[in-house]
């Protein structure tokens, strides 16, 4: 035996569990406007401070301040607000539809709506996003037909995905929204390949990919970043750090040790850390990274720091693993509220307009659900049985021909 000290295994734990006092005191949150905005041509080694701070534009007085202020037109901001509000209205209504047995599954993105909305509007038509299940606001910002969403969720005869997918795992090519899958992380590298293909083809389109902070632990994350870095792929790689991965806090993905934006440093690419609940900050950072990509300067990693305000999905109860009041103590607020207050502060918006927009959107969502219900909810209507065998391959082989025949008998 040596006389060395005993080792002991360290296992991270969140600072509060149900029944305990939640606290975000450990967070260092710089004031809005405090972080510098470097030139997109700046070399990576001059950017290594950025992963350790937090880019913010909307200040405590609801003003847009500092060098990252994207100075958006009122129109664009209202479009963004609308997309976020629509997302929330839709989430609420469809979550209830799940409770009512109209669908097998649902997932909300409450508190994270700024991300998809700002990025969808900041990128071009023709650019391609590689989404997670939590960026419905991307589609909302591009006016994807609500009824088609509900048809997919109900897996009915008009489901654009022919009943083949779990609810909310949309695909919407024309809206710049790549096919989702239940596996987390496995499309991150597709975005890099898509971006490389665009560059190979001397096109001008870029890609943007999302991954949850929990999912950064997958090998896919590293492989995507490696390829993006080596081939200078025109891609914006986004880590949505909502601090939870089902019941696991971000410390299980390494958040006790460093930030997710800091992972960029290991690949020699810029890493930005952004207030994900600040629509304007998300927009600005995305635009900065998109410009880098478009000017052949390669990939950027953006950590969008936010908070998953509700449960993971219809399958879990978050009060089983975190304090019920944790959401209310979260210091970066609600993205919808923050943009609304900013618009009011600048004089172009008011409570009345807001309420009327909210009710307009609620009506639109109800109408879409109604229309989809007419076709049918889960199990009451489904695409024709041939659709079980279509698209396995471009053309059927004898197995599928025989099996379709057998099913029909």
């Amino acid at each position, binding site marked *: 035996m040596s006389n060395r000290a005993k080792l002991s*295994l360290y*296992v991270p*734990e969140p600072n509060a*569990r149900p029944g305990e006092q939640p606290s975000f005191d450990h967070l260092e949150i710089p004031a809005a406007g405090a972080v510098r905005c470097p030139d997109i041509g700046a070399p990576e080694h001059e950017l290594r401070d950025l992963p350790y701070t937090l880019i913010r534009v909307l200040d405590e007085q609801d003003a847009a301040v500092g060098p990252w202020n994207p100075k958006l037109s009122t129109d664009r901001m209202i479009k963004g607000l609308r997309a976020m509000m629509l997302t929330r209205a839709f989430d609420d209504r469809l979550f209830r539809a799940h409770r009512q047995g109209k669908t*097998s*599954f649902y997932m909300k993105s409450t508190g994270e709506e700024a991300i998809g909305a700002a990025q969808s509007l900041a990128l071009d038509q023709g650019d391609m996003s590689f989404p997670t299940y939590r960026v419905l606001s991307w589609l909302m910002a591009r006016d994807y037909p609500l009824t088609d969403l509900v048809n997919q969720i109900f*897996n009915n005869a008009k*489901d654009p995905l*022919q*009943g*083949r*997918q*779990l609810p909310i*795992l949309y695909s919407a090519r024309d809206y710049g929204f790549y096919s989702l*899958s*239940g*596996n*987390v*992380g*496995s499309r991150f590298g597709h975005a890099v390949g898509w971006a490389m293909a665009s560059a190979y083809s001397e096109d001008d389109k870029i890609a943007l990919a999302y991954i*949850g902070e*929990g*999912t950064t*632990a*997958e*090998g*896919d994350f590293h492989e995507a970043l490696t390829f993006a870095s080596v081939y200078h792929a025109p891609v914006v790689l986004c880590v949505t750090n909502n601090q939870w*991965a*089902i*019941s*696991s806090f971000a410390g*299980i*993905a*390494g958040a006790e040790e460093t930030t997710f934006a800091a992972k960029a440093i290991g690949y020699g690419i810029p890493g930005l850390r952004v207030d994900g609940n600040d629509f304007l900050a998300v927009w600005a950072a995305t635009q900065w990274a998109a410009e880098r990509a478009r000017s052949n300067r390669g990939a950027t990693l953006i950590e969008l720091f936010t908070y998953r305000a509700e449960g993971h999905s219809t*399958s*879990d109860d978050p009060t*089983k*693993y975190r304090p019920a009041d944790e959401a209310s103590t979260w210091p970066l607020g609600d993205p919808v509220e923050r943009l609304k207050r900013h618009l009011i502060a600048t004089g172009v918006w008011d409570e009345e307009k807001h309420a009327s927009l909210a009710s307009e959107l609620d009506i639109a969502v109800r109408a879409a659900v109604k229309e989809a219900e007419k076709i049918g909810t*889960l199990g009451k209507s*489904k*695409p024709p*049985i041939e*659709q*079980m*065998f279509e698209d*396995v391959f471009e053309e059927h082989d004898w*197995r*599928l021909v025989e*099996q379709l025949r057998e*099913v029909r008998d």
Partner: protein
Amino acid sequence: MAAMNMIQSINSALDVMLARDPKVLIFGEDVGYFGGVFRATDKLQEKHGLKRCFDAPISEGGIIATAIGMGAYGLRPVPEIQFADYILPAFDQLVSEAARLRYRSGGEFWAPITVRSPYGGGIFGGQTHSQSPEAIFAHITGLKTVIPSNPYDAKGLLIASIECNDPVIFLEPKRLYNGPFDGRHDQEVKSWAGHEHAEVPEGHYTVPLGKAAVVREGEAATVLAYGTMVHVALAGIEDSGIDAELIDLRSIVPLDIDTIIESVKKTGRCVILHEASRYGGFGGELSALVQERCFYWLEAPVERVAGWDTPYPHAFEWDYFPGPKRLVNALNKVMQD
């Protein structure tokens, strides 16, 4: 004895082993404080401590790699993969490393790990929460693959797997967690309460790996099944009115070849039932083994009933899922021939 559903009996197996052997530890996505998305590890962290049952990063490859290293050190890790659909990122670790370590090192190192994972369909889980990947494990030399069909077996087989010095893939038919399911999806959901195999001893016991169970004796035909399909098979046999013998394989590696062959030689007819898509599925191996060894006893071709050769299609769950009716058709077919 206590009445347990399959989740409880699995939890009990883990509890017993954590208490009995300090070398046993559990980790996986959400298995710690929360107790797992299916509650299989419920309260184990509270009871045995943070370091005996803890959350892992979302990294199936990392989970298995780490488990192999722990196994090589001398522990008996029992990692959980949240859904068998998500075991694929760890496939290289399982095949190239866990399965081959003992062989390639001349017996110097081995990986006594038991990888638990819920698998199979029937829960409206869609493409990636419903698949049955057993065939790709059965082909891998050096891996054992175990699939229980009831609470009693689940606990006994899981303890036997943890105590085994070879790597074991332990696939839990998630549709059976809360009750037996015979494929009659339009009927009321059953619970395990009152089921004979839901009487489970509280303490330590094992069900040996590689020993099939004859669930129903019969003379007219042999049905081979495992997991959820054991219950579907019973229902199908009942519906068919045919006096079929039903064998629950329990583990597909090692396979209880003797029980299979003995039965088919007796009945002269054989139907194989599995959820996984048919082509290249484990049914092919079973069919080949049966006809290789019972050719002269067979009165009819060995039939396979399986999932179609498509991905698992959410809205078409009950068109895809091999229910009792498809077994009845196959039984009628082998009887006609």
